[in-house]
């Protein structure tokens, strides 16, 4: 309820406001001059101002904008093309015989293909011009394909006495293409549905025409893609079934439909996929058999073709995969043989890529590491602040020279380094990252570049602790360590009370201050803080334990980088440059002799046998 204006009160308020607030008016000249200045200003900016987005146009304007947007125009073009074809077909149905209908249908299909090609060109043009994001382009593509499928469906429905095989094939192919585009937009569940629809139509066609080689070929491709989608979704059982169906379809396709080598490559890839699916399900023996089939099939591809099409990577992955499986089965010698073959293959065929594997050409590899976590890995030069030094910095420079591409350092907190790698914030992680069983499930690792051990460090006056074993099951002894490391894992495994830190330096500081009783650190770090710095307040607590391997980690999607890195590391090892780097930092020791010959290395995957990872059946 609002009280009505009381004139007395109003008058009082008016009087108060007038006396207190009424400013002396501005000069008339000032007001007039300012208006002229503003008008001149507006005239000056008006041509520039025409282009920015005018906020919130009225509804008719918005509708107009929507109807004139490029996407709508493209969609309208498709609908127009389809409608035109349909209308033409309807007219001819009244006038011509069945053979004419068939030719018109072909014409419609051609129109549709042209419309799709036009959209493809449009996609590329828009994408090149960077006016839309790739996702926008993908959505446009999906819209276009949906319109195309709708057109085909209409044609099929209105066709006399049901669809012909040609229409059905077109429909199925359009559905498969739509599924592919849908997968590209990220909607994998929807893409799977589309694939199933297309494949169901194709299955029907293949049953009706067992003599045709084209249908099984399309089916094989479709099931292969479907399997990859299932695998990405984590549905391993369905993935394996799809790969199996793809293989069946290939077997039914007419021999010689593809060139032999091409066929072998596709079959080999499928065998590898089945092996991956079996391994994921824990069926190690079956996985080994499928890898073996893949290797045998891919082995029939001529060397020239392996090199020309970069197809050697499929064989490399099959060999590396079988090596992993054999290691898990405890067949160390066979595993190392496969690993050797894989490395030999990489040595023979890999070459510096003209285009970087990650990102556009010329973009450097991003190397993630923590320069604050501590020496001697990579750290700020105390004599020259702002400059990073360390043996990994020297190693990165050497790798960059070998790979023929720059490597750029990116600071990243150690404890979240691998999470950063998972999110794609860097291309490689190299920061004393140990190969550990649980990490193998998420990341791919290069060959080891350093063999480290864990060293216990205690205060100089410490009497209770002479080895790591003295700390087991002791409530009064706390050992500090860097978090998220093999050392942390070992302390837990040995039931030693621990305190984890985010940096390498803090545990040593706390040790000297008496807050903890020891530090379990990687040998390079322990050596740097105790021996090289000649710190009198601390000493080694017994012998170093538990060898572990430093390797460069990459995201599984970037596995292709690994072969380049492995070859570069191999060359650094053979040329002696790696040894020179370690000697410069006082890190060379007898253990590193093992790096010289890969056969003498303990296969990193052997750690999986003793670690908390999956055990073979």
């Amino acid at each position, binding site marked *: 309820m609002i009280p009505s204006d009381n004139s007395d009160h109003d008058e009082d308020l008016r009087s108060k406001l007038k006396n207190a607030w009424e400013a*002396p008016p501005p000069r008339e000249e000032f007001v007039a001059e*300012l208006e002229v200045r503003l008008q001149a200003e507006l005239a000056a900016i008006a041509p520039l101002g025409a282009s920015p987005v005018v*906020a919130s146009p009225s509804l008719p304007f918005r509708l107009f904008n929507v109807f004139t947007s490029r996407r709508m125009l493209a969609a309208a073009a498709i609908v127009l093309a389809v409608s035109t074809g349909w209308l033409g077909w309807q007219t001819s149905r009244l006038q011509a015989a069945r053979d004419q209908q068939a030719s018109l249908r072909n014409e419609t299909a051609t129109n549709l293909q042209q419309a799709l090609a036009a959209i493809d060109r449009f996609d590329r043009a828009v994408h090149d011009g960077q006016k839309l994001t790739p996702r926008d382009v993908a959505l446009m593509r999906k819209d276009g394909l949906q319109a195309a499928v709708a057109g085909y469906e209409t044609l099929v429905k209105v066709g006399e006495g049901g669809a012909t095989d040609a229409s059905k094939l077109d429909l199925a192919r359009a559905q498969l293409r739509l599924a592919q585009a849908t997968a590209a937009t990220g909607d994998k569940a929807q893409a799977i549905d589309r694939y199933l629809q297309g494949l169901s139509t194709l299955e029907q066609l293949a049953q009706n025409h067992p003599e045709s080689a084209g249908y099984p070929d399309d089916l094989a491709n479709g099931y292969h893609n479907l399997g990859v989608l299932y695998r990405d979704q984590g549905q391993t059982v369905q993935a394996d079934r799809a790969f199996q169906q793809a293989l069946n379809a290939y077997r039914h396709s007419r021999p010689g439909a593809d060139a032999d080598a091409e066929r072998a490559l596709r079959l080999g890839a499928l065998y590898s996929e089945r092996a991956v699916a079996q391994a994921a399900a824990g069926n190690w023996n079956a996985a080994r058999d499928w890898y073996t089939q893949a290797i045998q099939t891919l082995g029939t591809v001529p060397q020239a073709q392996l090199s020309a099409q970069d197809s050697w990577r499929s064989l490399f992955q099959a060999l590396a995969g079988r090596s992993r499986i054999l290691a898990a089965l405890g067949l160390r010698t066979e595993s190392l043989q496969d690993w050797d073959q894989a490395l030999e293959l990489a040595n023979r065929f890999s070459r510096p890529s003209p285009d970087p594997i990650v990102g556009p050409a010329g973009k450097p590899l991003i190397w993630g590491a923590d320069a604050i976590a501590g020496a001697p890995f990579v750290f700020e030069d105390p004599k020259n602040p702002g400059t990073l030094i360390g043996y990994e910095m020297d190693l990165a420079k050497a790798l960059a020279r070998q790979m023929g591409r720059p490597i750029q350092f990116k600071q990243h907190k150690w404890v979240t380094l691998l999470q950063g790698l998972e999110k794609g914030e860097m291309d490689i992680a190299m920061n004393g990252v140990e190969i550990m069983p649980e990490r193998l499930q998420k990341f791919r690792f290069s060959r080891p570049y350093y063999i480290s051990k864990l060293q216990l460090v205690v205060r100089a006056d410490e009497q209770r602790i002479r080895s790591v074993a003295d700390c087991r099951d002791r409530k009064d002894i706390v050992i500090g360590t860097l978090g998220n490391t093999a050392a942390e894992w070992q302390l837990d495994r040995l039931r030693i009370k621990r305190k984890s830190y985010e940096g390498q330096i803090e545990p040593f500081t706390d040790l000297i201050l008496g807050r903890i009783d020891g530090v379990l650190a990687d040998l390079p770090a322990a050596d740097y803080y105790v021996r090289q710095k000649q710190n009198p307040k601390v000493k080694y607590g017994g012998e170093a334990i538990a060898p572990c391997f430093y390797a460069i980690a990459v995201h599984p999607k970037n596995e292709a980088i690994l072969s380049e890195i492995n070859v570069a590391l191999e060359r650094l090892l053979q040329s002696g440059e790696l040894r020179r780097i370690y000697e410069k930092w006082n890190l060379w020791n007898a253990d590193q002799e093992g790096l010289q010959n890969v056969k003498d290395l303990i296969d990193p995957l052997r750690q999986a046998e003793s670690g908390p990872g999956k055990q073979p059946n």
Partner: protein
Amino acid sequence: VWLPGLTALQSDDDIIRAIKQGDQDALGKLYTRYTLALWRFVWVRLRSHHASEDVVSEAWLAAIRGIHRYDPNRVPVYYWLVGIAKNKILDFLHKQRRGQIALSGLAEATNDVSHPDAERIRKVLIEMDDDGYMLECLVLQWKYLDGLKVCDIAQRLEKSESAIQNLLYRARMEFHRRYGQEYQSELP
């Protein structure tokens, strides 16, 4: 004679849209509609003709230069203009503190203030402005100083008349509440 408020009745949004298209007449309308309000806003804070002219012209020029970035859906025109003016006043005071502007231009004689509580009322109004009651202060000005009718104010702000009645009611209540408190607090 310059007569504020006597402009064709057109909503602020329409005027802004027209200015963005380069319409000089629309600019004239906006200028006429808000110049006095903006002038008062600046003058009661600086209390100097010279300084107010500088700040008001700078505020208007900044507003016109940035008009294409202004979205009427996000904030009413007066809020936007007052926001710019506030920044310009702060700039001015900053420069003045740094000695870049002579102090002589400020604190001119406040002329014919006859109401005994004029200073207190001014303080209350400035506080209302600063506390976000800008629209309430604007309608108080238009109603009681410029003599605009409720229907004219409603047209300008694209609101219903009852909404303006409500706004005026809230403005009066807020003013009296603050003025009363101010008065009470000064009692011995």
